[in-house]
């Protein structure tokens, strides 16, 4: 199968390094701006909720962080899978960068969710809630991936073995989504992903979506920054890196 040229460029570390270098400052600025706008809108401007009062404002942070954590796992699994099947080192680099970022987002999601839970459900933690369980399991999946990588000295082996684990773990991701439909739980049903009208008030919908975009861009920014560091580390013996270093020092 003849692949187009841009596909080959996508697998070239120097190309991606330079491209990412140009893009990340913009991503950083955009994410900061969006976060500021969304946060102000959601936390200050939007009206209080009929039922939950002011506390509901975590709606502008928690679901977005949780969504990004799941997306991070998918990015990691897809990248690892591509790296495994087509033996592209850069794809493995993406996976390895996405993992700690995803783990952090997952931990934040659990923390913000727990803070939300206390005033609304009366408890910081509800073991029987499927969403909490799945998010916790997602955290363990990230940690398992990182632990498995760390156990191997040969980086190439580590890449490929953990790719298999990541792809198998991706089965957990749909279960998170469908678990809300399958069981009674304290969690709200999906308010955005339903195909009919979303059940969230329009004044709240816009900042909600802005924050979704904001956290997504934030994730991409962190990912590309981390990816550049990972590329430098993996390619440290290659000529183009040596030239970069000399150029920087000279």
């Amino acid at each position, binding site marked *: 199968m003849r692949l187009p040229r841009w596909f080959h460029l996508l697998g070239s570390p120097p190309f991606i390094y330079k491209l990412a270098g140009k893009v990340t400052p913009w991503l950083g600025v955009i994410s900061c701006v969006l976060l500021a706008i969304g946060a102000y809108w959601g936390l200050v401007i939007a009206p209080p909720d009929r039922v939950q009062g002011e506390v509901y404002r975590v709606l502008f942070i928690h679901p977005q962080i949780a969504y990004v954590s799941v997306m991070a796992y998918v990015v990691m699994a897809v990248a690892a899978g591509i790296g495994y099947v087509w033996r592209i080192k850069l794809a493995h680099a993406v996976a390895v960068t996405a993992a700690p970022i995803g783990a952090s987002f997952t931990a934040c999601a659990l923390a913000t969710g727990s803070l939300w839970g206390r005033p609304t459900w009366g408890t910081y933690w509800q073991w029987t809630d499927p969403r909490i369980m799945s998010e916790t399991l997602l955290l363990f999946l990230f940690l398992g991936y990182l632990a498995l990588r760390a156990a191997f*000295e*040969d*980086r190439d082996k580590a890449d490929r073995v953990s790719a298999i684990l990541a792809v198998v773990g991706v089965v957990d991701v749909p279960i998170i989504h469908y678990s809300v439909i399958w069981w009674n739980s304290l969690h709200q049903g999906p308010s955005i992903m339903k195909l009919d009208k979303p059940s969230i008030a329009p004044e709240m919908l816009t900042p909600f979506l802005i924050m979704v975009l904001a956290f997504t861009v934030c994730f991409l920014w962190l990912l590309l920054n981390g990816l550049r560091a990972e590329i430098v580390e993996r390619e440290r*013996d290659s000529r183009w890196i040596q030239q970069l270093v000399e150029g920087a020092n000279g």
Partner: protein
Amino acid sequence: MELCARELSVWRGERCLFDGLDFELGPQQLGLVVGANGSGKTTLLRVLAGLSAATSGVISWRGSAPDSLPFEQRGEIAYRGHLDGLKRDLTVLENLRFYAAIWGGEMNLDELVADLALSSAAHVRVRYLSAGQQRRASLATLKLCAAKLWILDEPTTNLDADGRSKIVGWVRAHLASGGIAVVATHQPDEFRQRGTVLVEL
């Protein structure tokens, strides 16, 4: 029918084990792999057998890469490495019977065992055998598959003079009947004959 290696190079992590290896072996040819300990002989043999992948270069066994052989060709390569491949809790005969079932070999196992002077040990669990007996039992499995390519990693280790000459005889007979063999050894003169290709690492 031939085994071909072109521009074969293997890196493990950041260490280059060998680079730019080229050779070709046709029927009745023996490839002797020699080199110091740690020079990559075992790795080369594992790559040829299809257990590991080379970093770059091409290996072809009858036109296919050894690590992606079509199933019909799977019985054609026999690899015997440093490990015996025998289950220590089974007897010699049980191990041989198992491999006969796996490789689809039809052989009189009692004769095979006698040929290698293992008759007295045939019903003994492998864990109670001496190193030489274990090595002989492991090499016995070579006759259970009708393999055309034999890849042997230091096959005469632990063997006494009788055992060594038996194995050398087997390799010679295999080659004479049109087979190909790659043998890694510290004593190349034992195996050397006409048509031997020396691969030095």
